[in-house]
């Protein structure tokens, strides 16, 4: 069972008692098993269904969220490994309803079709631009290569990241 193998990788048996983590700025106390996937807590417990379950094996990128600003696949990230850290989901990019420049650029560049991979793509692109405000094509592709888009919108996704970069880096 790959999910089982994956969760063992992150499982820290020394963690006991409730786990505390921050999601989009709000503190949460969890009493779930420490090897519970972060994705499950986000989606089924906290109702944050933006991050998607795709493959469950960290191969598709649909579940990507930020952990202390770094993109991680939430499907194989245990809540134990997220304890004490700040989780940002796609919902957290636009907390007051005003879209993040990456989200706006995805709309304008028509960088989505079915939209299932989009939350993960958007989150990864936002993290990329924080670290690299003006990425070139190679840097964008490198940052986004672990994200699969079955509709094949890749060229427009690269275009959208460039568009967001132009607007935010000045």
């Amino acid at each position, binding site marked *: *069972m790959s*999910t089982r193998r994956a969760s063992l990788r992150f499982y820290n048996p020394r963690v006991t008692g409730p786990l505390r983590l921050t999601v989009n700025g709000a503190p949460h106390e969890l009493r779930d098993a420490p090897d519970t996937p972060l994705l*499950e807590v986000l989606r089924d417990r906290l109702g944050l*269904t933006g991050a998607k379950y795709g493959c469950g094996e960290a191969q598709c990128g649909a579940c990507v969220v930020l952990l202390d600003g770094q993109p991680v696949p939430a499907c194989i990230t245990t809540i134990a490994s997220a304890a004490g850290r700040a989780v940002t989901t796609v*919902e957290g990019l636009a907390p007051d309803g005003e879209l993040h420049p990456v989200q706006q650029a995805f*709309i304008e560049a028509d960088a989505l079709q079915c*939209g299932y991979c989009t939350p993960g793509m958007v989150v990864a692109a936002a993290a990329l631009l924080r670290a690299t405000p003006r990425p070139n094509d190679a840097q964008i592709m490198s940052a986004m290569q672990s994200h699969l888009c079955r509709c094949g919108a890749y060229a427009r996704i690269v275009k959208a990241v460039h568009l967001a970069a132009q607007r935010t880096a000045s």
Partner: protein
Amino acid sequence: MTPPRQIATTPEFGGGRATIPPAAPSTTEPAPNNVAHYLSFDPDGGVSVHAGKAEVGQNVRTSLAQAVADELRLPFERVRVVLADTSRVPFDRGTFGSRSTPDMVPRLRRAAAAAREALIDRAAERWEADTSALLSRDGSVVHAETGQALSFVELVPEQWLDVPFDDDTPLTPATEWTVAGTSAPKPSARDMVAGTHRFASDVTLPGMLFGRTLRAPAFGARLESVDLSAARAMLGVVALHDGDFVGVAAPTAHLAGRALAALRARWTSPERRVSDWGLYDSLKKEEGQTEGGRQLAERSRQEAGSVADALPSAKRVLRATYTNA
């Protein structure tokens, strides 16, 4: 004749119920052919399109709305699309084979064209005017000479038009389309980038369980025995065994995964070993060995022209083998 069914109109656009003719719930019967199956005239002046198609990234919401907007002469923004909800849409065989545009667009165009003519007829009756002076514009039927206007809402207060259409219902020629063929913003894009668009997997219901099935370790392996007790001992877990099928369900997906991992199954080891490696050769070998295999091979073989003749005159030759196994 099946009795007419009651259909709830979209609650977010005014609710209410209306009686519409029954849709044909069979693959052999012709597609539903009444305007009331497809279009509702909503109290706010918009029109809702009901189609049994699913939006799976082909942007069918846009193309279907465009077709209806064109025929009704209604602004694109005032057309809503209700898809896939089988309690609200007419029967459809499904979304497959790139058929949504070639099948559903002409059907909706015919429904909308028939609706437009019926609306014009209703207005002509009210005004005792000749239909030739009337046209549909911007959500109303207007009289070209007097300037009189009746909105769709005034003309169809019951929201549904019981008007049949068929393959001969005249359509607007493509050269006169004003909406289809133009770029339109994706209706659900904002929700999708914000993560608030709800996909089927985002819907949870009270008491819902998450299921996992046990897969055979090899192609052709048969289940010899399975011990469900460890899985069943887990709180809230259901485990089922029927023939070679074994499945578990649990209140969370994670617990379902643990329950699945706790199953102790013994499988036969098939003599014929097929894996990802060598799958093509294995299939190829079997192709000629069964009557079904021979028929399938015959059906899927397509030849046109001559590769041997064309190769010498090709400017550039690339050689590679592609298989889909």
